[in-house]
């Protein structure tokens, strides 16, 4: 009964989305106020029904209801609670339902709380949002019904992919989806504004929190995904330019560009057409990301659905939405003025540099990711494009971007003097030069890119605080602090990346219990190896005593796990974090002589990569709170002024 109720709720939500779209489309055409009034409650109801349907799916997973096909295929009754719960979206159907749920709730949220936008633009936005949702409802109901029953009812499910059985699953996919959906809202705003030809500062201010929110979630999602891959795969890599990683990076790059251009639009009423274009591109990138990941066109652990029918369905949706938006953009761009003028050396100028560099990086990631598919389709040759290409093609641009990031916030809007800029950033430039000089002098074997990156990071870390220089810190707005922290976070992450790629030490050994392994200032003693059992796995656990140069002693226990349901092995790395780096120990296979493969890495400052990512997200969060509070105050003041007249 639960499954059927869930399906009915899903159908009702789809019908409400259709109604929402129709009310908006007909209402705008006929200019009927009563339609405008009706669209808000319909959007709220749609959100509630789809959320109810998703809750019921979670309930089915928690109960391990083996009459539902999706539960059978992706769950097992002897699985820890958290993976039953998170397993709801650890599969194709569930993750699509999560997507459309977040979208429905976002629509409901706009309908309830958005007050600053003109009514017509708001209605157009909600109609566009419903139109996008409709495609996903159709997809779920036609080719990916999550509530499908199964007969005969099997006694036990097939379990969840062991690589996904990690707390990361509870966190990583939903955060990325919140990000993708946030970009869909920004896209709906852009479509709404294009339809009603109402592109200006007010529109930018209404759209900005959604862009910012999406960007925060994408930042967190990518950071979490990177750390998850780092510790779960057991080889210490944190970014491989894998197509699936790129699929999440591309929307982030577009969202970062959009975030900066929407600020220009909100503050200076400039870059109108460009901002609209970026909103279209950002959402296109999240759709393409979903297509790449879900269609199975890139086979990987993410592609639960290796199914051509679903792939073509998503491709059709992709063509419809992106094609439609591009056509609308092409039709309306002529009527949108670019807005106020500014000079090359100005805050806007730096933000344009930011946007162009991000766009070029985005285009390169896009080309590099899809190029092998294109070549294979055209010639049948298989080729690989990986880290050597992406690092070399995007690395120098990323460093230029970071340099622009240091200078931009110190420039005035509209027009500034290049000489005074040079004065303001003389200290960071000196620091960068000094860092570069000492790195060249005292280190060996660093790549040029890592060398420049580390030196630049030192200067930028200081420069990111320069906007606070000589300001009254208590009266500085919160969003300025947000920017400072986010930019500082980029420098911190850059330090981690450069150190990881330059100073990592590796030691691979075959050891017997009792043997010692040394790396950097660590001495590891392999004490014992013991079998153990978890709820749905058995493992061999090694006991290792790790002693650092200063005498501190730690006990670590890397494992080699065997999952019964899937007959797969995973290695659970042991990680020891110190302020100056991370020790990474993995237990491999044993041989007939009683020796065990043990892989040990010392990675100086590697945690800074993810710590930086979290700082970036935190900066975004502060900026969002600051903006929302300011917007709320301004609206209250306006309402008060109107009431007293």
């Amino acid at each position, binding site marked *: 009964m639960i499954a059927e109720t869930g399906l009915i709720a899903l159908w009702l939500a789809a019908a409400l989305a259709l109604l929402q779209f129709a009310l908006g489309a007909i209402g705008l055409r006929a200019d009927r106020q009563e339609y405008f009034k009706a669209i808000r409650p319909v959007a709220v109801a749609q959100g509630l029904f789809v959320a109810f349907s998703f809750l019921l799916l979670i309930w089915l997973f928690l109960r391990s209801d083996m009459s539902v096909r999706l539960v059978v295929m992706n769950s097992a009754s002897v699985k820890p609670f958290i993976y039953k719960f998170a397993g709801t979206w650890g599969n194709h159907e569930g993750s699509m339902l999560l997507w459309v749920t977040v979208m429905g709730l976002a629509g409901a949220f706009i309908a309830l709380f958005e007050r600053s936008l003109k009514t017509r633009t708001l209605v157009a936005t909600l109609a566009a949002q419903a139109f996008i949702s409709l495609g996903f409802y159709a997809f779920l109901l036609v080719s990916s019904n999550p509530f499908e029953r199964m007969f005969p009812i099997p006694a036990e499910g097939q379990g969840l992919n062991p690589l996904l059985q990690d707390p990361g699953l509870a966190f990583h996919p939903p955060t990325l989806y919140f990000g993708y959906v946030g970009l869909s809202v920004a896209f709906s705003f852009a479509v709404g504004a294009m339809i009603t030809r109402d592109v200006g500062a007010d529109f930018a201010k209404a759209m900005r929190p959604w862009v910012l929110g999406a960007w925060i979630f994408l930042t967190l999602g990518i950071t979490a995904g990177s750390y998850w891959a780092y510790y779960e795969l057991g080889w210490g890599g944190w970014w491989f330019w894998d197509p699936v990683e790129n699929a999440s990076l591309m929307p982030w790059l577009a969202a970062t560009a959009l975030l900066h251009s929407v600020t220009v639009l909100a503050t200076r009423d400039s870059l109108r057409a460009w901002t609209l274009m970026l909103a279209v591109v950002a959402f296109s990138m999240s759709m393409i990301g979903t297509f790449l990941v879900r269609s199975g066109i890139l086979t990987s652990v993410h592609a639960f659905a290796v199914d051509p029918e679903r792939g073509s369905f998503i491709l059709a949706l992709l063509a419809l939405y992106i094609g439609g938006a591009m056509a609308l953009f092409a039709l309306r761009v002529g009527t949108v003025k670019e807005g106020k003028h500014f000079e090359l050396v100005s805050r806007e100028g730096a933000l344009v540099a930011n946007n162009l560099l991000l766009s070029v990086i985005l285009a*390169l990631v896009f080309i590099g990711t899809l190029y092998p598919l294109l070549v294979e389709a055209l010639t049948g040759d298989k080729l690989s494009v990986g880290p050597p290409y992406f690092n070399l093609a995007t690395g120098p641009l990323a460093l230029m971007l970071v340099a622009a990031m240091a200078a931009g916030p110190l420039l005035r809007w509209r027009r500034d003097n290049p000489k005074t800029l040079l004065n303001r950033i003389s200290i960071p430039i000196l620091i960068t030069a000094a860092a570069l000089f000492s790195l060249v002098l005292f280190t060996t074997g660093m790549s040029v890119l890592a060398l420049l990156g580390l030196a630049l990071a030192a200067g930028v870390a200081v420069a990111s605080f320069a906007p606070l220089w000589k300001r009254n810190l208590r009266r500085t707005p919160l969003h300025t602090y947000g920017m400072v922290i986010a930019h500082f976070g980029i420098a911190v992450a850059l330090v981690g990346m450069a150190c990881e790629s330059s100073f990592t030490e590796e030691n691979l050994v075959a050891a017997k219990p009792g043997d010692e392994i040394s790396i950097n200032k660590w001495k590891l003693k392999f004490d014992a190896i013991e079998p153990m059992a978890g709820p749905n796995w058995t493992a061999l656990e090694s006991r290792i005593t790790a002693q650092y140069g200063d005498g501190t002693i730690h006990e670590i226990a890397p494992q080699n796990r065997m999952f019964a349901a899937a007959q797969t092995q995973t290695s659970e790395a042991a990680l020891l974090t110190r302020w100056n780096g991370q020790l990474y120990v993995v237990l491999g296979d044993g041989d007939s002589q009683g020796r065990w493969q043990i892989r040990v890495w010392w990675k100086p400052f590697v945690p800074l990569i993810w710590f930086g990512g979290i700082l970036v997200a935190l900066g975004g969060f502060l900026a969002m709170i600051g903006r929302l509070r300011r917007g709320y105050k301004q609206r209250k003041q306006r309402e008060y002024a109107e009431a007293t007249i």
Partner: protein
Amino acid sequence: MKRFLVLLIACLAFPVSAQTGLPPAPYANRQLDDPQQEAAARELMEELRCLKCQSQSIADSNAPMAGDMRSQVRERIAAGETPEQVRSWLVERYGNWVSYNPPIASAVTWPLWFAPIILLLAALWLARGRFRKPKDDE
């Protein structure tokens, strides 16, 4: 020390090959003694695709075939081959699919390497148009 290592290699290599029936891969999970050679091998291994995996380099894969390839790479580097020689030997055997570093001098992949320059020029051209016309202030 050297003698001990040789002994260790000998112990390692034979039982493993006897057990699995694969060709002996003594250097699948063993580093080369010369740190410079090991660094060169490591760098190359990170740029080679594990053919049995979904999207991993041979440097970070548990697949037996990746282990064999690691061993091959290390042995060839130790024998004095340059990383590029090893790479082209592997590309000859498995095609461009095996290398994550697409060649520049190839009819199929050169556009990839020119894309950054072309895109950057296009971006500059776009920006130039934006800054050129100081006529309309709104």
